């Protein structure tokens, strides 16, 4: 059985909003102020251990805008663009990002199906 793993940037007081700076939050982009050599390797290892991405609407929209045009030497962007994406939303109509699947209802059943589907490692939620 595959595992669901939740991965978040979080401040000491529990704020997860806009770590990357694209959401216009007053303090947006705060997670990048603490980047060092270890963070990209950690994120790469985490991504390698996963083969599906689970996203909510807000993060999906941000990612779908940012990732398709990205390229890098270690293959991070390629994997992000090619892996399965499951997006949970009742309002999104159509997903343009490569290999994205919309989950509108029955989140629990669909999630269980994704968990038992053939695949390596676990699924990462953001």
């Amino acid at each position: 059985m595959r595992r669901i793993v939740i991965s978040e940037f979080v401040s000491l007081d529990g704020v997860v909003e806009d770590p990357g700076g694209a959401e216009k939050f007053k303090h947006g982009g705060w997670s990048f102020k603490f980047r060092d050599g270890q963070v990209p390797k950690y994120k790469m290892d985490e991504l390698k251990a996963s083969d599906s991405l689970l996203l909510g609407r807000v993060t999906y929209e941000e990612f779908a805008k940012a990732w398709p045009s990205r390229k890098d030497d270690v293959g991070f962007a390629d994997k992000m663009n090619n892996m399965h994406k499951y997006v949970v939303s009742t309002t999104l109509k159509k997903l343009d990002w490569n290999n994205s699947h919309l989950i509108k209802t029955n989140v629990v059943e669909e999630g269980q199906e994704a968990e038992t589907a053939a695949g390596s490692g676990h699924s990462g939620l953001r």
Partner: protein
Amino acid sequence: MHVSLDGFVAGPNGEIDWVRFDDDLVEDVQALVDSADTALFGRVTYRLMESYWPTAADSPTASKHDLDHSRWLNPAPKIVFSRTLKNVHWQNTRIVKDHIGEEIARVKKQPGKNLILFASPTLGSTFMSLDLIDEYFFNINPIVLGKGKPLFRDQNEMRRLKLLESKTYKNGVVSLRYRGGN
């Protein structure tokens, strides 16, 4: 300060039964306490402590921690910050009603060891807002409480901290020590 992963220091009714505090943690906390010679409290925590520590060492079931901490805490100077508290019944305790910043500045100038603020989340938030904290020590417990008394109350400003030390305990607690400032 013992904190849940979601940033609460107590449940909605003050519950702290979820706090994991076993021998190797006790040892490190004791070292922290030994670096101080004065205890600071808010009213609520003070009341709880006053009802327990003066006689804690007398109980036949007192633990080693009870004995060690009693020996330190009972004779130590204690300052309670409260506008409403009228009387205190614990040795070497005084009440400070207002002008917290001035009072702390005055006490810090006196010779002696560190001043340690125990639990007291409301007072802790006030101290944070007034920029009075030089060092933070949090024990993050592996639990999500969902609701309760928050560690960071009414903090509207972004505040940068410097991580001094982190340690992972076998019981799942992660302790984080930060330098304060902004």
